[in-house]
């Protein structure tokens, strides 16, 4: 009860910020920074996370007057975070600022072994986390920004098409079609690694 009295609600803080109290935004920043960082970390390279997370809060601040209290602020903020990550990739894919190394024989061997071994061992048990991460980064770098986001949200995070569509601000049918196509592209890329 006491906690509720001292801790203003999101709606209350938002109202204060819109009324001109810019400093109140710090409450929202502290409350949701870990949540935003968790989202951003999943989609963005580690060294770019701080910059992108900062951009998420700046965008959220600017868009605050447009926030409708129908949904939760957290949900609204997560959509801004995902779209900021998407914009990051769009920008970087255009400029190709992030160089991606090619795969080595080590990765090919790992992939071949993984595909041939149908046992249910997790990658921790196999002790080859590095190869899996590098292969994933390589494959995602070969996809377009749109395909990349859909693969990450639907294929890797396991979100439903509807949830992914709400986060990205796209139509459900668009995400459905793109999800199918991008999965096929990913499979083609991985198959190409073995046959190369």
């Amino acid at each position, binding site marked *: 009860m006491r906690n509720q009295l001292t801790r203003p609600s999101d709606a209350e803080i938002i109202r204060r*910020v*819109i*009324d*001109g109290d*810019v*400093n109140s*935004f*710090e409450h929202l*920043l*502290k409350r949701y*920074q870990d949540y935003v*960082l*968790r989202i*951003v*970390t*999943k989609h963005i390279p*580690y060294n770019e*996370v*701080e910059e992108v*997370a*900062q951009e998420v*809060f*700046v965008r959220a*601040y*600017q868009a*605050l*007057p*447009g926030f409708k209290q129908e949904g939760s602020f957290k949900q609204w903020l997560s959509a801004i975070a995902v779209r900021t990550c998407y914009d990051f990739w769009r920008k970087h894919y255009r400029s190709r600022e992030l160089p991606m190394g090619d795969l080595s024989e080590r990765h090919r061997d790992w*992939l071949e072994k*993984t*595909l*041939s*071994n*149908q046992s*249910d061992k*997790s*990658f*921790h048990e*196999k002790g080859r*986390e590095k190869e*899996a*991460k590098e*292969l*994933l980064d390589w494959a995602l770098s070969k996809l377009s920004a749109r395909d990349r986001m859909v693969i*990450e949200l639907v*294929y*890797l*995070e*396991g979100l439903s098409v509807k949830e992914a569509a709400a986060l990205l601000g796209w139509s459900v049918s668009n995400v459905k079609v793109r999800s199918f196509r991008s999965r096929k592209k990913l*499979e083609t890329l*991985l198959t190409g690694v073995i046959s190369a």
Partner: protein
Amino acid sequence: MKPLQRKYEALKKILREAYFEKEHAEVSEQWQLNVMRRIRNLGPVQSGPSFFMLFEQFVWRLTPVTCLLIIVGAIIFLKLGFFPDYDVLTLFINNTEELSLAQLF
């Protein structure tokens, strides 16, 4: 086909684990200060609807009506014809005795 699908399912599981294994980023207090500095530099948020919001709310809503008007206009033009000069000339040729240029204006 089935074994290939099973292989991809196994690979998917491993890639998902790799995806969730990413190192969690920690930010310093300086990061918070930087964000707040940027926000203070932006100044108070505009509470009233901006031009772009109004554009989005009202102008885009009129798009179907505009499209309908364009289609109706195009049909009318097709029915009436695009060449009024040609029609006037035809009128001259057919009624040379009764119509003079001055009568037209």
